[in-house]
């Protein structure tokens, strides 16, 4: 297996696969809304606006072949969430999958958590390649029991592989506002779910109740100034969690300090640049994603125009800031008019935490190499779909003269994922999933 990102400055990305329909007309239900590798990278789950989850599995035969190790095939497809209706509030609850999080593997089956706006579900994905045959009374039509002369013991016989997905737990009725995040704790027993104003702690085995650990709802809703936008558990410390807010502030909470973590243990906030203040400063400073590094030493936040890397030991300013699409700053008014300014981009770390990746418009996605201080802009396009074809970096002018007309806001990459152990990435455009791999020398 290639050392993930060791020579990240020399990484060249090759097209591997693209999943999804080719049609230009995209059905809204097919819009990809979540992408997540499991802990080994063997499985890749995607969720869409129609409430479906599609799981891809890395082809085990090709794992050892360097040129084909990024081949993923459909493993399982199931309907995770259905649209619901809240009769009391007369509100429809969308079935769109907001987040998918895998659980560490404990046995032969795979488990994942999926959530829409209101309900979290624990799914078990298991394989069945044997079935019992040789029943005494049933093997096809019912046998006449009077004709049975002897008893036989049913035996397992091989069958075609069948992958079953079954809901094992449903965690419902705990969120009055829209769920934006779920995160599995490193203790493998609990997880958190976060909505706009509250964060709840669940036990994976208990669906009837959850603990509220963060509540920022003001006594008077007219005093509301800030909402929670993303939350995540620390990868190693089971008592530590962080949540980002609409004000661009990240708060770290320690559950050992108190049952209710309203008082943060640490706050991460960069002083505002007064010179760049505009009508839309509050919108573009809102945190859209927060991710701990695999080591747990750093965390990354994404706002509308930049990615920031924070050392969790220093809250005064980020240690690194990468401008993702600064050229949009002069077009914020147009982006506000067409609603794109409210888009929430996610970000992800490479397996060795050396490179970070995030999406942008025009189906561009950007990678920032922290070690070599370099960045690259690549495009996920069906025009570059030749197998093993190397992606050529796109040159994007960083000047301020870029017209909004050259920014295709309908082609946006909101969701990306990086294989935890290898240089394989999954990039979701509107309704297509692109898989790229590092070209091995």
């Amino acid at each position, binding site marked *: 297996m290639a050392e993930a990102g060791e020579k990240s400055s020399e990484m060249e990305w090759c097209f591997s696969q693209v999943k999804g329909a080719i049609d230009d007309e995209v059905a809204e239900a097919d819009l990809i809304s979540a992408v997540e590798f499991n802990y080994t990278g063997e499985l890749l789950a995607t969720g869409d606006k129609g409430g479906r989850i599609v799981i891809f599995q890395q082809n085990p035969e090709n794992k050892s072949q360097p040129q084909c190790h990024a081949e993923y095939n459909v493993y399982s497809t199931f309907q995770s969430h259905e649209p619901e209706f809240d009769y009391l*509030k007369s509100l429809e609850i969308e079935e769109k999958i907001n987040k998918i999080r895998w659980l560490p593997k404990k046995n032969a089956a795979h488990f994942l958590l999926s959530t829409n706006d209101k309900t979290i579900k624990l799914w078990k994905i298991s394989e069945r390649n044997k079935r019992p045959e040789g029943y005494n009374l049933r093997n096809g039509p019912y046998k006449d029991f009077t004709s049975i002369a002897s008893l036989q013991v049913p035996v397992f016989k091989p069958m075609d592989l069948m992958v079953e997905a079954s809901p094992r737990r449903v965690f419902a009725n705990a969120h009055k506002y829209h769920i*934006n995040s779920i995160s599995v704790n490193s203790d493998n027993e609990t997880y958190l779910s976060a909505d706009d*104003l509250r964060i709840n702690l669940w036990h994976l085995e208990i669906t009837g109740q959850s603990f509220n650990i963060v509540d920022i709802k003001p006594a008077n809703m007219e*005093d*509301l100034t800030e909402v929670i936008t993303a939350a995540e558990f620390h990868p190693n410390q089971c008592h530590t969690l962080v949540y980002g807010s609409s004000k661009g502030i990240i708060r770290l909470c320690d559950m050992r300090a108190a049952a209710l973590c309203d008082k943060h243990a640490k706050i991460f906030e960069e002083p505002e640049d007064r010179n760049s*203040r505009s*009508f839309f400063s509050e919108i573009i400073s809102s945190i859209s994603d927060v991710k701990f590094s695999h080591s747990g030493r750093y965390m990354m936040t994404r706002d509308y125009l930049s990615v920031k890397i924070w050392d969790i030991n220093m809250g005064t300013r980020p240690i690194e800031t990468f401008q993702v699409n600064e050229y949009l700053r002069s077009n914020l008014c147009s982006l*506000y008019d067409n609603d794109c300014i409210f888009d929430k981009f996610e970000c992800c770390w490479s397996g060795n935490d050396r490179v970070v990746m995030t999406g942008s418009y025009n189906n561009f996605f950007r990678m920032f190499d922290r070690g070599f201080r370099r960045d690259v802009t690549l495009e996920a396009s069906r025009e570059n779909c030749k197998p093993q074809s190397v992606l050529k970096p796109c040159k994007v002018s960083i000047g301020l003269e870029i017209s909004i007309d050259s920014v295709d806001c309908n082609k946006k990459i909101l969701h990306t994922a990086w294989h935890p152990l290898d240089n394989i990435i999954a990039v979701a455009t509107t309704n297509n999933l692109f898989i790229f791999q590092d070209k091995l020398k």
Partner: protein
Amino acid sequence: MEVGAEAKRIMVVALGKLYSSRTQRGGLRLHRSLLLTLVMKSARDMYHAAAQEEEEEYNGVVPRCDPAQVDSNNTTSTSTTTTQTVEPSLEQVSDSFTQPEPMEQTFTHGQTQQSRKRRGKISAVPDFLPLKKAKLDCPTQLVVLVDYVTCSDLGAAPSPIPVPMAIAAC
């Protein structure tokens, strides 16, 4: 008055988005509604600041009361003086537009947003928006998080502006 016109346009767009989000599938999004409200506040503050500057230029003299030293970058402060040039439609947006009086204006410079007490009751729909009566059966009328400074010398606090917006009550 480019800034003022742009600010007004942004406010109109924000109100339109708030209206349309009521019928969105999945219900109102608290985060989005909050951001729109903050944009409206910023636009309104900048509109006031621009209007104030224009009035000063027009008058060409120092006003009797303390000059409105509103930092255009400081959106947490708001002048509540009148603007004779304000279009009648905008007066309905905020009742803070009153006749100028010899008074001391107090401004809360440098106040952080967190320390601002918000009184968001709103009572009139701006007439530059299409007429659309809210038909809410349940008391889910929300308040636009409009922030303004109330100067005690100005008398009673301005009456609120009603922009029906459903933030799910708890």
